[in-house]
Structure formats: C-alpha cells, structure tokens
C-alpha cells in the first residue's frame, strides 16, 4: 500500500518530464507486452471463442471427424442440458453452490481467526504460519488422494477418530453416500483453502495503524467491540477480495473432486466443471460439454466483473 502512495506522489512531481520521455516509449511498452498477450490470445482467447461456437453446434463422437455433418443447432444444447428430466446440469450448479458456499464460509471464518492469531508477534509465529501454507501449495490431486484415504471406510483415520470419541458406532462410508460425500469434499477443500484466506487477511491486518488500537483500548473498548467496530471495517477491502476471489477459485474446482469422488455417488458431488468434463471426454458429446463449460464461465463472469469493479474502486479511492 505504501508503495502505491509513493508511486502516486512520484507521478505528480515528474509528470512533465515523464511525458516527454515516454512519448517514444509508448510503442515500446506495447511491444514488451505483445508476446505474452498473443500467447494468451492463441491458447485462451481463441479456444474460448471456438468453445462458444462449438456449443451452438452438434459435434459428438460421430460427427467429430466429419466436419460436413457438423451443423449449427442454435441454443438446443443449452435447452437440452437445462430441461432434460433430472437435469444433471441444474443439479451440478446447485452442488457447486453448496460446495462453494460451504467451503468459503469455513475457510473464511477459520482463516480470519488464524490471521488474527498470526498477526501477533510471538515465538514460533512465523514458523507455524509458514508451515500452514503448505496445504495450499500441494498438488490438489495428492491432497485429494490423501483425504480419500483418511475418509476411507476401512483403514480411514477419520472413522477411527469419530469411533474413539463415541460419535459413531460403526465406520461410515463417507465417500459412498451422497450427503456425506459432499461433506467430505468440502472438508478437504477447506483444508486446502485456509492458508489463502489467512495470508490475504493478514496482509489486510498489517495495513491497520497500531495507534488506532491504542486509542481504542484507552476508550475502554473490549476485544469483541474492537474486532467489529475497528478491525473488520478497516480491512473490508481485503475481506471483499478474499471472498470474491475465493468464490471464483472454488467455483471452478475440478481436480479435488475428480480424484476423491469423480462426481459420484449418483452425481451427488457432480460440479459444473466435472460435468462439463464428463460430457466432453467420457461421453464425447463435445458440443454439450462446451455448453456446460460456458454456463460455468457465465456464472464466474458475473462474480469476476464484481471483483474487477471492486479493485477499481479501491484504486480510485487511494
């Protein structure tokens, strides 16, 4: 944040000089950025447009190799996906919402608690804080594998733990029952996502000047009051960033679920991402898979626009 302020101060002082110098530099800046932009256009932008076109066609395993049989069918793929009896797409959207809201709720609460804890200075603080980061960095496939093992009905530690506490009588088949399978993937995802929430919130906390807390404790405010009256309002931008980014990143999760449940049992953990993948690469209904992926994109787009508006406001208010 401080860095931004210096940048702005600098801008005012040197605006004149810089204008002259950068007149020729404008083209250079563009040239520097061009290769990366072209790369992303070729491998992300173009496929996105192709995906959109594909979703309006009828490409499947039969017409894949025969372009002459591929034709435009309008919104038919979308309509079929949404209106077929027992629409799996609708179900997967609901599942994804449950998965996302469930994950973010706990990630945020726990992450916020840990941020408050690790924002203090105490012996071992940076070691403990650093080590909790590893769950965020691990390949998600391995994390999924690990939780699949911990939730296993025989040999799984979670069942043994719950039985030792007399909470359950017999081992549960967590990943084989619809309700508990969702609980299991949410728990695994919470473990992965806490460090992300924690780190961003710690960054927010470090921007609060210490003297505000001092004057607060002089006024006799207790800890809970300080938290709700000072801390939370002061780091509201960081909180909004964490929540919106968290939503976007959680809503598109694929790997974890594919490894742990593959969307099962009976589509109970099917997310939009896993469903889109299944349509395209297990049922080879490429156009339908493209349509499902576009639905996922549309939902993310709405949240993404909200996030971008948010950082623009933040930038302008500085």
């Amino acid at each position, binding site marked *: 944040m401080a860095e931004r302020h210096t940048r702005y101060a600098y801008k005012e002082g040197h605006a004149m000089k*810089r204008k002259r110098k950068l007149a020729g*530099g*404008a083209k250079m*800046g563009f040239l*520097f*950025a*061009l*290769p*990366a932009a072209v*790369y*992303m256009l070729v*491998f992300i932008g*173009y496929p*996105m447009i*192709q*995906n959109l076109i*594909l979703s309006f066609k009828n490409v499947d395993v039969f017409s894949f190799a025969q372009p002459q049989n591929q034709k435009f069918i309008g919104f038919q793929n979308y309509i079929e996906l949404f209106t077929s009896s027992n629409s799996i797409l609708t179900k997967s959207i609901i599942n994804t919402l449950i998965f996302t809201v469930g994950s973010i709720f706990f990630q945020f609460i726990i992450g916020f608690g*840990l941020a408050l804890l*690790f924002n*203090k200075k*105490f012996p*071992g603080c940076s070691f*403990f804080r*650093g*080590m*909790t*980061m*590893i*769950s*965020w*960095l691990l*390949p*998600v*496939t*391995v*994390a999924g594998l*690990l939780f*699949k*093992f*911990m939730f*296993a009905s025989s040999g799984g*530690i979670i069942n043994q733990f719950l039985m*030792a506490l007399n909470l359950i009588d017999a081992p549960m088949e967590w990943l084989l029952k619809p309700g508990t399978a969702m609980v299991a993937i949410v728990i695994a995802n919470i473990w992965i996502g*806490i460090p*992300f929430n924690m780190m961003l919130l*710690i960054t927010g906390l470090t921007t609060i000047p210490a003297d505000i807390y001092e004057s607060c404790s002089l006024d006799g405010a207790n800890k809970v009051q300080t938290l709700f009256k000072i801390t939370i309002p002061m780091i509201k931008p*960081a909180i909004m960033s964490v929540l919106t980014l968290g939503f976007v990143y959680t809503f*598109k999760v694929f*790997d974890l679920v594919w*490894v742990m449940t593959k969307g099962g049992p009976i589509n109970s953990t099917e997310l939009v991402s896993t469903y*889109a*993948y299944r349509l*395209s690469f297990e049922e080879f209904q*490429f156009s339908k*898979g*493209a349509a499902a*992926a576009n639905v*996922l*994109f549309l939902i*993310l787009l709405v949240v993404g626009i909200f996030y971008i508006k948010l950082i623009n406001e933040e930038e302008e208010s500085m």
Partner: protein
Amino acid sequence: MGKKEKRSNLISFIFGAIVFIIFIFPLYWMVVTSLKTQVEIFEIPTPLWPRNLTLEAFKAQLSASSDTLRGFKNSAIIAIGATLISTVLAIPASYGLARFRFKAKKALILFFLITQMLPSTLVLTSLYIMFSKVGILNTYLAPILADATLGIPFSIIILRTYFLSIPKELDEAAAIDGCSYWKSFFMIMLPIAKPGVIVAAVFSFVYAWGDLIYGITFITDPNMRPITSSIYNYVQQYQTLWNSTMAFGIIAISPVVLIFIFMQKYIVSGLTNGAVKA
C-alpha cells in the same frame, strides 16, 4: 517484557502449535502410512506411528518396473517446459505494463487478470480439437503449451508489482547515460527484479506440476503421462494398497515440498502480492 505480555505470548504459542499440528496432521499421516505394513494400516485402532517401519512401499515405487519414476520424469519435462515459456513471456510483459504508459495498457492488465480466473474446462475441448488438428496430442508439447497459460497471468501480476517497486530514477539515469530500452531492461531492471522472477518461475512450476486436467486429456499414452495424472489412474487400480499409494503421493509432491522448504519467504510474499495488489 511484562508478565501479562509473557502470558499472552504463551497462549498465542499454544494456539499456534495446535493449529500447526491439526494442519500438518494429514501430511504426517501420509508419511506414516507410507512406512507401515498393510496389516498395520487396517488394524483397529490403527497405530499412530509405524511399529514395523518398512520401506517396502517406497522400494516398490522406485523399482525399475514401476511407472512412478517415468511419471516423475514426464512431469519434470512438462513443468520445466511450461515454466520456461511462462517466465520468458511474463518478464518483458510485466516490465512493459509497469514502466510504460500506452493506450491498451489497462485493457491488457484486465485481460491477464481475467485469464487467471478462467476455468480450464472452458478452453479444454477447443484446445483438444486444436492440438489434435496440429497432431501434438500425446506429445509433451500439448500439456506444456496449455500449462504455460496457468503461469503467465500470475507471473505477470507478481512481476509487475516488482517492477513498480523499483525506483523510476534508475531507468531514467540509464536513459541519460544513453542506454537503450533493451539495454536498461537487461542490464539494470532484470538483475534487480531477480527475486520476483524466481517467485514467478516457482509458481509457474508448481501450477504446471500440479495440473491434472490437461495431463489426462491431452495425453492418453500411459508412458507419457505426468505423475499427477497417473495418480488418478493409480487410485482406480490399487484402491486399498494405501502404503504404496501414499508412497506414490510423497514422491509426487517431493519437488513442491522441497521448493516450499527452501523458498518459503519468497512464496509467501508472492502469494500476497499477486493476489491482493493485482
């Protein structure tokens, strides 16, 4: 230090330690399980540490006939390839977006920001068709090209904040000395931005190493599969051979854990810079 402060430090330490233990337990469990015998794993209650410590699971994983090492090698090639592409493209782009003012600048930053948020499934089918037309399915090139798209936006965002933090006077001084843009970029900016470049490269590597979806889609030949994609097949095949599965998992995460141990400081700063400042 006052008595009260000492006590609050102790309480914080205890909380911190509890959090640490809960967080690290799944990893501890992975290591312990990989060193147990199958019998011990299914014992009730299962021992919390291996009583008959055995390296059999690792031996089996690392034997010549196992696919694990091959998967590891494939992953290394793919992740290094993707990291190279991503870093080489991200360095100049972030420099250009940090140091120059031009019309499309804001739009470009926004573009990279958005590409970072896109789900892989959105481009997967089209990339598959594109790669199949060019004939690079089942080659390393397909996942390398796709994985680089994961690293580029993040690298640009991190590196841009790095370049922004370098005082402008430096390149102005270079310009007065008659340095060209290229020369001042290579001789002055790049050496200063080295820590940022390392963070960007590390993240690109970690992203590419962890990829599942591109690996399982573009590569169907088991001999070419990256290790994270073969995990998926492995689980299907050896469901309950948990010691062996966990040993496999440990081998698969080893590069990431090593990177984490040696570069923790960089990674933490990279994560916060990349995600918050954008």
